């Protein structure tokens, strides 16, 4: 507060708890109170309006509907589900389907995006030109239209009766079918062997890295890892009795049964989302690579490192600082864009929750479920990416 000369005329001050109304802090507090009041008042008004209208129309409220039988079937489900299962299970099936497409989509989009980003910086005019066309066309077409395009492509594949299997693989308009080994104990052991191999490889890599830091001796990590990856599952398969039966897709009266199948809707959603997001990730990666100071690349070349080693060991680790924060939003975008699958027939969370809302009439509860689930997924992705971001940050001295 400025000093007021003792002999000047002081204006009549209104005080609030002993402090002047014109005090900036007091005004600040008042503004916050008013704003909070308006926000809470708006929230209360919306909520009470909704409750009053639900009562007036005698629409059912409450969460009891989640335990009633769903009475509708879902096209694809990773967990056992029938029309006698309760509504919460139907929503869970939708959630698992959303995860399926989001996780696979994120991984594929990242791989493709990094490839596209590095390619866009190529000195080869053809490569960088093609990448530029790829990025600009895929970024600017709405993702829903892209998904509808891919669904049309999938539906234009040969029908189940006309398609010819190739080594047991069949591509039809009802999906992609692949032969899988028939379920047997040997394959379960092989899977266990695979997990053990992954852990073993990680341990070997860390040990080799430490040994190199201490003694300078290089250990052939890649070949050893490859060997472990092949040997351990093979050993598990052998121990399990070396089963060789295959589950091959067969054409029945209406459909192909057997083997593993990927529905055309899943493939269309996956392709549309992956290509769309990879264009954005490509640009992010390009920005990250360009952010590495040129001196680093020149110095690396001066000491004679190959281009691929420079990219892997010098540029990308430093570029990651710039890449990871926008990458988080791309992953979140991909997860949320998967909700567009309802328009093409893929039973994701929004689709099953929508059907539930429709059959029970309880729209507010359904919307709350969808919002809470997406919020949780997004927050989890953000948390993980922030942890990773902290981990790769350069410590400033």
């Amino acid at each position, binding site marked *: 507060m400025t000093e007021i000369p003792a002999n000047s005329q002081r204006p009549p001050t209104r005080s609030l708890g002993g402090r002047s109304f014109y005090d900036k802090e007091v005004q600040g507090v008042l503004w916050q109170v008013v704003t909070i009041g308006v926000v809470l008042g708006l929230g209360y008004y919306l909520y009470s309006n909704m409750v009053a209208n639900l009562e007036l129309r005698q629409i059912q409220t409450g969460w009891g509907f989640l335990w009633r039988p769903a009475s509708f079937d879902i096209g694809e489900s990773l967990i056992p589900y029938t029309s006698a299962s309760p509504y919460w299970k139907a929503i869970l099936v939708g959630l698992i389907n959303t995860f399926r497409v989001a996780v696979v989509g994120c991984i594929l989009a990242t791989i493709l995006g990094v490839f596209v980003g590095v390619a866009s910086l190529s000195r080869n005019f053809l490569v960088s030109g093609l990448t530029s066309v790829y990025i600009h066309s895929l970024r600017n077409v709405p993702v829903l239209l892209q998904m509808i395009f891919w669904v049309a492509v999938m539906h234009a594949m040969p029908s189940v009766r006309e398609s010819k299997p190739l080594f047991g693989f069949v591509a039809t308009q009802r999906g992609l079918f692949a032969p899988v080994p028939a379920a047997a104990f040997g394959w379960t052991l092989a899977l266990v062997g695979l997990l053990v191999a992954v852990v073993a490889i990680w341990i070997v890599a860390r040990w080799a890295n430490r040994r190199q830091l201490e003694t300078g001796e290089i250990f052939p990590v890649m070949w050893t890892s490859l060997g472990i990856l092949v040997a351990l599952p093979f050993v598990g398969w052998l121990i399990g009795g070396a089963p060789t039966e295959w589950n091959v897709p067969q054409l029945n009266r209406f459909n192909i049964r057997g083997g593993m199948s990927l529905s055309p809707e899943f493939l269309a959603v996956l392709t549309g989302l992956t290509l769309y997001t990879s264009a954005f990730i490509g640009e992010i990666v390009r920005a990250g690579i360009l952010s590495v100071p040129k001196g680093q690349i020149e110095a690396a070349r001066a000491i004679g490192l190959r281009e691929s080693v420079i990219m892997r060991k010098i540029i990308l680790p430093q570029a990651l600082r710039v890449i990871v924060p926008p990458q988080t939003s791309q992953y979140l975008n991909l997860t949320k864009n998967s909700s567009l699958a309802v328009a093409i027939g893929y039973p994701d969370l929004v689709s099953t929750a929508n059907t539930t809302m429709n059959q*029970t009439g309880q729209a507010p509860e359904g919307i709350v479920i969808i919002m809470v689930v997406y919020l949780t997924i997004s927050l989890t992705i953000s948390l993980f990416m922030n942890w990773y971001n902290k981990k790769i940050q350069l410590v400033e001295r």
Partner: protein
Amino acid sequence: MKSKLKLALVAGAIVASSVSGAMAGKDLDAIKARGELLCGVSGTLGGFSLPDSKGVMQGLDADICRAIAAAIGTKVKFVPLTAQQRFTALQSGEVDILSRNTTWTLTRDTALGLNFTAVTYYDGQGFMIPKKLGVKSAKELDGATVCVQPGTTTELNLADYFRANKMKYTPVVIEGTQETNAAFFSGRCDVLTTDSSGLASIRANDAPKGKSDDYVILPEIISKEPLGPVVRHGDDQWLDVVKWVVFALVEAEEYGVTKENADKMASSTNPGIRRLLGTDPGMGKNLGLDEKWALNAIKATGNYGEIWEANIPPLGLPRGLNALWSKGGIMYAPPVR
């Protein structure tokens, strides 16, 4: 500074004054004040609600709405809705009435906060399948892929039927009618299922040109589907109006009052006809409408039989259950008296 505070207080006052609680209000008054009846229709089903080449909505559901609008003396505006949007649109007030081949069920009549008014079409669910699959009965459909729309009784009846007959199927659930039909005709699924009237309409209108005969509708009818207009809970007068307009149209067919002879019939000596057309006043007053409510409705669209004749025969469906009770069907209107 001062003006900012004033602004905040004024804004707060506006918000506080608009907190008036529930959107209570008589539906009929609101419609009359607006001058327009908002009628939720499908907009994609030939014979029930489909715009013609000039963009004018044609169909049985559309004509019922036109009759109601004429009875209450307003215009009508058609709002296309998908099966998933329709109930939320009616519940929230986006439309005043839903005339969208909606099946009358207990859950919808109670838990959804809606009131069904009258049945304008007695229907049942069936299956359509390409002839070349050689299927003669719905009991042979084990293992088939079935296209169905979400949020319908079709979906539920399908699940129940296959479960009861111990058959398996793969559902392909697509929201829009056009997309579902396209998926069926492209071969994505073997079977299309919806109300029989819908199947006949899709077979006649949406099959690839000249290939309608390649598709056959299986003989089994697996459910009851009484279709009719729907309104919200909370306005008994509006419910009565809609109900009695439909009954008036059926009763007009019973008396032989048509679009052409309605004015002439108004001076008939038959007391039933005089009461219906308002020559003997009283019925309109009870409903809160003009005494010529039924006369206006009949002059706008014709009686029930005329509405039926104008929309359904091109689909190849017989009058069947929808004939008058005196002619072998079950269309039965309570007396207008």
